[in-house]
């Protein structure tokens, strides 16, 4: 099946505090956007696979976020839940152009 991609500007880099998450709602998507301490910006679905906790409010350590509900540890780059828990959240592609932060969505 053919996919169309949609690129949406959601913020500028300076609007995103480091080591914290930001909630981004695009249409029906709710996305957690993280500005990591190494400068990278990553986007994942704002919903823990365990009990639906809002990941954007979790504590960010390196490339992982800890869900604020029951402390599941999730890699924000590939969406994988870390051991001993299991699961995965959707990730979204992030592009940065002239300080503008874009999220790329499958339409």
């Amino acid at each position, binding site marked *: 099946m053919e996919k169309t991609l949609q690129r949406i500007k959601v913020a500028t880099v300076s609007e995103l505090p480091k080591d914290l998450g930001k909630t981004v709602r695009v*249409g029906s998507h709710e996305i957690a956007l993280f500005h990591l301490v190494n400068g990278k910006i990553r986007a994942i679905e704002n919903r823990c696979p365990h*009990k639906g*906790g809002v990941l954007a*409010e979790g504590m960010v350590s390196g490339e992982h976020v*800890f869900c604020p*509900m029951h402390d599941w540890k999730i890699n924000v780059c590939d969406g994988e839940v870390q051991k001993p828990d299991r699961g995965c959240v959707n990730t979204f592609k992030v592009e940065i152009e002239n300080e503008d932060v874009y999220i790329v969505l499958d339409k």
Partner: protein
Amino acid sequence: MSKQKIVLIGNGMAGVRCIEEMLKIQPNHFEITIFGSEPHPNYNRILLSKVLQGDTTIDDITLNDWNWYEENGIQLYTGETVTHIDTAKQVVYSDKDREVRYDQLILATGSLPFILPIPGVDKEGVTGFRDIQDCEKMMEYSNKYKKAAVIGGGLLGLEAARGLLDLGMEVDVIHLSDYLMDRQLDSAASKLLQKELEGQGMNFLLGKNTQEVIGNTHVEGLRFSDGEEIKADLVVMAVGIKPHIQLAIDSEIPVNRGIIVNDYMETNIPNVYAVGECAEHRGVVYGLVAPLYEQGKVLAKRICGIEGDPYEGTVLSTQLKVSGVDVFSAGEIFESEQTKTIKSFNDWEGTYKNILIQDGKIIGAVLFGDTKEGNKLLSFINKRADVTEYLEAEKGEEAGASLVATMPNEEIICGCNGVTKGDIVQAIESQGLTSVEEVKGCTSASRSCGGCKSLVADLLECTLGDAFSKSNQKEPICSCTTLSRDDVIAEIREKNLTHTREVMSVLGWTTSEGCSKCRPALNYYLGMVNPLEYKDERESRYVNERLHANIQKDGTFSVVPRMYGGVTNPDQLRKIADVADKYNVPLLKVTGGQRIDMFGVKKEDLPKVWADLDMPSGYAYGKTLRTVKTCVGESFCRFGTQDSMSLGIALEKKLERVGTPHKFKMAVSACPRNCAESGIKDLGVVGVDGAWEIYVGGNGGTHLRAADLLCKVKTSDEVIEITGAYFQYYRETAVYLERTSVWVERMGLDSIRAVIEDKQNRIELNQRLDEALSVLQDPWKEALNSDRILKDLYQSVKVPAGVK
């Protein structure tokens, strides 16, 4: 080579465990199909009683989630039952007309609750206690009805009864014998158990033979053989289980009580095996978890074509999963002319021990009240140890380690999760583990009931030797470091460390970024050591403390404004009402700490709500002083001897905002009737004629603990001075997240009292406290005055659909 086709009938603990073992030995070698009648993936059936008791949820007891089946390429059919096996053609047929051919077939159909063959058991409201559906049914009934009757005073019945009590029902337990758990306990232990459970609110009808379930379509009660009747809206049958073997019978696989298997779990039909509760081995059918795991391992090796030891049966051991009751039983428990015993009974502490010995060997044991020794005794029984060895071991310190050293690698340490000694030792060695917590994280050993923690510690000691010392279970702060709280604070002071990242890099954290355990702890310790210069790190705060509101499960927040001493006025109430209207607050609730909680506020609305309220934060989210509850006291109450409200307000105004290792709750009551519940607070004050009593270390939460009397003083000023010193001493010496109830027991009340009684200490502690208090301001105002904070923390991004 084409893959071997494996079909497993029964998606439960025994069968799936066997598949896991097979995948470990020969991954990618099998094409596996699993049929399960229940609509769930494999879950930990033995923890259902904990679900019923409210200690955990159904989601949390899943052992293999859907992903696991997918990742391992397993075709899973849930909610589907195999109805026939053609053992000649090697094909199974399901109730959904599916046909699956097999090379090897594993029967793991488990067992069914045994329903008494008496009239009326088909009425609505009669259930077994076997699966998630039964569990859900009981929970549903507890919402609508009041009276439950559990038939069966064995392990399962008592766990069900305790669960129903927790669900708010009145529970009668009916048992045929005069003694509870009569198959696992001797009469002395059984009577102790009965007394304990009666204390918890269970009602027992012993020596009763149930004859009929009475009622119309729905259960209304039970009738016994002696003619007596009781009322009941729910009847739980927990008299036992019977192997589920109908499919085997229909398919002409030989059965007796269970499906007959040899020492390699083979039936006498080629390529058909049975494992778990449906199997009968050497005349025994097992209904507990440990044997199932052992059988699974033997069978996995057999199917993979690997030479292995035969299964030779299991010594059974039991542990009752009822909170507040410790019971252990293993092996033989009935005395005979050939047996001798080692017995001890401590009426005062309510503990009992009975060890059975035959021909100089330990053959069984019953423990009540203190079951720490249980696992060790089980090992002695398993290896048929000489009783002298046990008595020697009891004397020596090295006992535990030397005992685990002699265990074979296949021996199961954690019965709940089927983790062997070999698994644990390998994890310790290959991943450099040094604490029980780390072993738990890597292997799941001790993750469920925790009964094997001491054995895990022994294994660490025995594997690591001198590198591991149990007293040095100075718990590391988290798995990022081996340093304890005391080590870290000493280093912070000595090296003048000022930032969490600096602590982590200077002290050699194994992860450069830390984790959700160490970062908030370091943030607290740094602020405690250096309150004037340390800048609190909001990134290292848990969401509630970062946003100064309590997150709820749907991602909204709750807001609790400060009401000093639980005293309010019309103006505050009007403001709260207006704000609730304006922001459509869905729920207003009075809290246990005498405050008003506004639930369901959206994050973006928080600053506006605070601005409109114009009241200080009530810190309902913080590791800090939460509230000071007060009773009305002498101003209105005819019994009040003191002005409790004024003292409570003064204490709350003095101590509010400053961080503590964990939350800190207080109360002031004006007389010993104690309406403010000072006896279960971190610090509670009780007024008596002409004096105040100060109680400490109380807790009304998970670990209920009555507070201890610290001292008695004459004036309110003295209360404030002592409270300040005590509060600061807790701040300076407790481990992050250690409540005062635990801290008091660790430090010892006498040693705390000795510090606080010293005048000079009190002055210095209060000075350091005042210093920490001097730099704090109301966090809601702080946020409202800073555009940066509002933008960074409270604003989200919203892009309407369709924008390019």
